[in-house]
């Protein structure tokens, strides 16, 4: 053909696909901004002009929001805004760290099992279902009760390990629905090797599902950390985390409700933006969904 490869005025086919996709929308960017703010706060907490989260201000005990302490103080006179920002470090680290472990192990295993099938699939799937049958939260609580002293790393490892079977199950079933399609056979018959098929043919198809499950997973783990903190099984006080802030507020809820409200809002908004981003990304990058 005489056509030049791509000209700016070329028809839409293969060109600007973004035009055909559902737009991400302003709310998506607000969510991204909020998430970025959270991450930035967690990273730069030491540099930011914040009060020491452990410092007690005896002039303001159990105070509501004021100019001195924008979000008020707790029963020991510690600044809540500062504690929320510093607390996000624990929540974000646990959330992302354990998902790195969960996906790092669960995703390759799931894809390999679904592509290979046979004995490997049978054995790994059986093991994973046995693990799934045991309630993860009980396992996490049991391990964290005895594996002392509890450090952030141990919490991440335990939650990450507990998430492996869940990730494995989702990725395996997603891969399974792709691996049985004809185009995988087409690639095989073209002489492509297994590694290449998994990387080039399967991964791009599984990725959208993986990303949205990853974001939901981070949200779930952040909540789980909150639950563990509530049970006193997360990082030791006085280190703040969103979970243990909510936990500590419980005893004096009637005197100072702000103590529960602000960390809960922080946690809620964080989860909401994560879920929304995951949902929009899936819709946006799912090329098959745009299909007429």
């Amino acid at each position, binding site marked *: 053909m005489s056509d030049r490869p*791509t000209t700016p005025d070329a*028809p839409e086919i293969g060109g600007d696909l973004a035009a055909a996709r559902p737009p991400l929308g302003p709310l998506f960017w607000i969510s991204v901004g909020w998430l970025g703010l959270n991450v930035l706060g967690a990273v730069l907490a030491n540099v930011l002009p914040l009060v020491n989260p452990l410092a007690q201000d005896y002039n303001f005990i159990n105070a509501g929001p004021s100019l001195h302490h924008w979000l008020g103080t707790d029963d020991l006179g510690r600044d809540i805004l500062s504690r929320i920002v510093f607390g996000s470090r624990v929540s974000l680290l646990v959330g992302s760290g354990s998902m790195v472990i969960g996906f790092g192990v669960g995703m390759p295993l799931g894809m390999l099992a679904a592509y290979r099938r046979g004995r490997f699939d049978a054995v790994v799937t059986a093991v994973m279902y046995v693990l799934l049958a045991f309630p993860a939260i009980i396992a996490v609580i049991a391990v964290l009760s005895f594996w002392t002293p509890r450090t952030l790393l141990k919490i991440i490892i335990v939650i990450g390990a507990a998430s492996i079977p869940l990730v494995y199950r989702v990725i395996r079933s997603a891969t399974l629905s792709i691996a049985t399609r004809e*185009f995988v056979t087409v690639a095989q018959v073209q002489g492509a090797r297994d590694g290449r098929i998994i990387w080039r043919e399967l991964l791009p198809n599984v990725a959208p599902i993986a990303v949205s499950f990853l974001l939901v997973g981070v949200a779930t783990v952040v909540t789980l950390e909150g639950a563990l903190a509530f049970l006193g099984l997360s990082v030791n006080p006085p280190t703040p985390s969103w979970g243990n802030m909510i936990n500590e507020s419980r005893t004096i809820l009637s005197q100072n409700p702000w103590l529960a409200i602000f960390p809960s809002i922080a946690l809620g908004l964080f989860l909401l933006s994560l879920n929304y981003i995951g949902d929009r990304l899936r819709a946006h990058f799912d090329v098959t969904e745009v299909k007429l």
Partner: protein
Amino acid sequence: MSDQPLLSVRHLSTTFATPAGPLRAVDDVSFDLDAHETLGIVGESGSGKTVLARTLMGLQPRLNVEVTGSVQLAGHEVVGASTARLRELWSSEVAMVFQDPMTSLNPVMRVGRQIDEVLRVRHGMDRAAARARAIELLDLVGIPSAAQRYRAYPFELSGGMRQRVVIAIALAGQPRLLIADEPTTGLDVTIQAQILDLLDTLRAQLGMSVVMITHDLGVVATRTSRLLVMYAGRVAETGPTGDVFRHHRMPYTRALLESSPKLSNAPHTRLAAIPGQPPNLARVGPGCHFAPRCDLASDRCREVAPALEPTERPDHLFACWHPLRTPSETPGASS
């Protein structure tokens, strides 16, 4: 190599182990295919056509499947070959066009990249050369503005266009044999004709051999040189296409021919459907598989399976105890 057929199949059987017992989907099939020849394989759904095609490619899973006999492809044995060995044959010796163009393309890869893949991995081309060749191939299979379509995703193309892309992928390795497994399923009739004509043109142009698998006799009538009629995994009749159409001897072939509409029929003629259904291959008797649906069947048919026998022409074979003399012979005469 030249005196030997490109594809030589001998006593090929594919047996699946099922809970109901062994299921012989392909049963003692033998045929030869010369270079530049087109072989049509016809039969009802469930007659073992697709299993035969996949067996020819060496695509059967290792578990629960037993393949016996021999498939010689350009002098290489396919049955029992390792995946590494098959990989050398695939794409450069034999390629396949699959049934459904909706599922044989990766939905999240640009179509050009899917053609590139084989060129870069197997033929060691660099990115630019592979791209140029891919655009050439898209052009060859009749895709307009090939350079722009190179960047298209499968969902941006119509069914016919997609099947053309699938054909381009199959042609990328310049195979000597192309196996087309019902390449026009799911396409509308005018597009079907276009795709079939395209395959025929490409065969002549590139000097390939083609195995065309279909349930549509109209597809094979003018586009194949030889025909293999399959029923329940066995060869019912095989021979030069014209001979099989005009001088078929097997009642099943006649039944197939009569069940397709003809323009010469008077309006509102009822089509002669074949009564009943193909048998469950896990539970078949010793005799001819077609016997339960055949109006010429005798006790002998139900007890002993007929072997393939030549007609007056040595390359036209059929398997029947009560062969038809001519297509016009009245049924029931010999029973």
